[in-house]
């Protein structure tokens, strides 16, 4: 009996270590469904793993996304990444962070770069996978993903002290995954 237990334990440990770390996903928010196709899901704000930032207020996050902050405290240049139009994640960012329409967003960055207030416009990437890989490789990058798309290659930061898995997390996606 003891031998059987030992064998089972070894098998479980082996399976655990055999799984690559990037396949671990962030737990879904208790208040929102966990699978990618669920229409309502938390929007995770992600940065490169080397970024020391752990928490941002929604106000500071808004300033970063608006282009009002160009450097992280560690000196790296901030690079805001956005998904292309048509993604529910982008709609959530425009609604909850920018508080702008699509045309308002475009006009904001056109005017900001024209007046010199904003040094660089956000980088638009064509899919969540590319966005995740970009952030994995760019130390100053910040972006967003549906919570179920997050893996261990990027770092999820808290917004106003809340993780996407927390009940009162403010950033929520309303729409299915593309």
């Amino acid at each position, binding site marked *: 009996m003891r031998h059987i237990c030992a064998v089972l334990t070894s098998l479980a440990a082996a399976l655990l270590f055999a799984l690559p770390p990037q396949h671990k996903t962030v737990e879904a928010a208790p208040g929102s469904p966990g699978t990618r196709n669920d229409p309502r899901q938390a929007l995770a704000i992600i940065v490169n793993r080397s970024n020391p930032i752990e928490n941002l207020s929604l106000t500071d996050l808004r300033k970063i996304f608006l282009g009002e902050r160009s450097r992280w405290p560690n000196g790296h240049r901030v690079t805001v990444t956005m998904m292309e139009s048509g993604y529910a994640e982008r709609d959530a960012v425009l609604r909850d962070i920018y508080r702008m329409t699509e045309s308002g967003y475009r006009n904001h960055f056109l005017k900001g770069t024209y007046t010199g207030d904003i040094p660089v416009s956000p980088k638009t990437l064509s899919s969540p996978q*590319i966005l995740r890989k970009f952030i994995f490789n760019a130390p100053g990058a910040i972006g967003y993903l549906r919570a179920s798309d997050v893996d261990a290659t990027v770092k999820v930061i808290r917004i106003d002290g809340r993780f996407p898995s927390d009940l009162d997390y403010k950033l929520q996606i309303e729409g299915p995954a593309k």
Partner: protein
Amino acid sequence: MRMNILRSKNFSFLLIGWAIAMRGFPLMLGILANTTILQAQASNGGADVDKQTIQLLLRRIEQLEAADKQLQQRVAQLETAQHGITLEAAAEALAPASAGIEKSQHGLRLDSTSPPVALPSETRTAAQGEAAPSERVDDGKTLLNIRGFGDYGFGGSNQKGTTTAFSLGQVDFFISSNISERFRFVSDLVFEKGVGNAYEEDLERVLLEYRYSDYFKMAFGRDQTAIGYYNLAFRHSSWFQIPTGRPFLFRFEDEGGILPGHIVGASASGQIPTGKLGLHYIAEVGNGRAGAAGAAPVQNFVDDNTHKAVAVNIFARPDFLPGLQVGFSAYRDVLSPPNAAKIGETDLNTYIVLERSRFEWLNEALLIRHTPEGLPHTFNTSGFYTQISQRFGSYTPYFRYQYANAPNNEPVFFPIYQVSVGLQHGPSVGLRYDFSESVAAKLQYDYTYLRRQQTTTQPSISQLALQLSFAF
């Protein structure tokens, strides 16, 4: 005797030999059997097998050579791209490449199942620029970004001596270039109405910017003077303005403006670390404007005196109300009219602005003080404007009221710049319709009361203007 035999070396060797023989026998037997089988196969069809194997190996070598060639090409491509590339460009180019991305005409295609691969640490460091010994420039691609703004209009007024006319407005080519991570070139090449009825080009802004951090940015060249809000917020683009034109107080020098709208010099600007208050500063020094009648007002190459113009603009963008900006600016210069006493100029301005994506409310007040040397008297010109607009779908109705009041015998506006100020005030109402994200039509009506004018005796002027404004 027996014990002696057992302890002798010969007996040990015997035992070892026996063990080897017992363990090695099956092995020897196996080798012998295999050799026999192989010999039999060779004698039956060995030639065919060798031929097939060789062909397979040759095919495999060809495949490997092709793969190697592809990899070498990709490495060369990446090395070229890496030379002088910025962080994000490097990350974008290399990360997908390492993750099995293919470039297509429509952008990047990605194998989403492939795991991300980290860039080499030295590449990331160089790309980020954190340890780069010098600012590098990518010679392999164009660095210019060009956007354009323009307008075209039709209008007329009841002012005596004028007729209705079509008009080409300003066409502004906004050209910028991120030379490196911290240096940026910015220019506004504007084609606009020149002397008489001609069209001429004008470099309204030519700047080399160095951005050290959010708290400190320097700019060298020709720029809009840091007086007030409107001058910096809208510059030469009619596209960003809701109405058809600028308020009277903030017209450009070559359009009958009374402020020094441009300056050639250097400036420092940035945020002041004040937390939720969001204070910002702009400090500027430059040539100031010409004091001679008929001279180009913006002194690009020579200054008619050694006194430099100085401007300071301090403003707050507090966190508690996004879109709110409250500021104060001061400008000081000395004008040197030929064969006349120097005139000190001090421009004081304050503003409060609320700009949201669909709502805009601008308020600015201005005091221009001219003090000729040797005279105890200072000539104060005051003015303000308020402008409000709210967007409903594609329609944006707007309203503006403006006021300017210059004293009699004001020594600068009319004597030097031939601009009649006197007392003028009145409302403007209009409607902007956005056809798309880049094209809009504006219809505006202005009514202006006029008193103490040097150029007309009319008590008021009504004006109607239609404008097509666009960004490209």
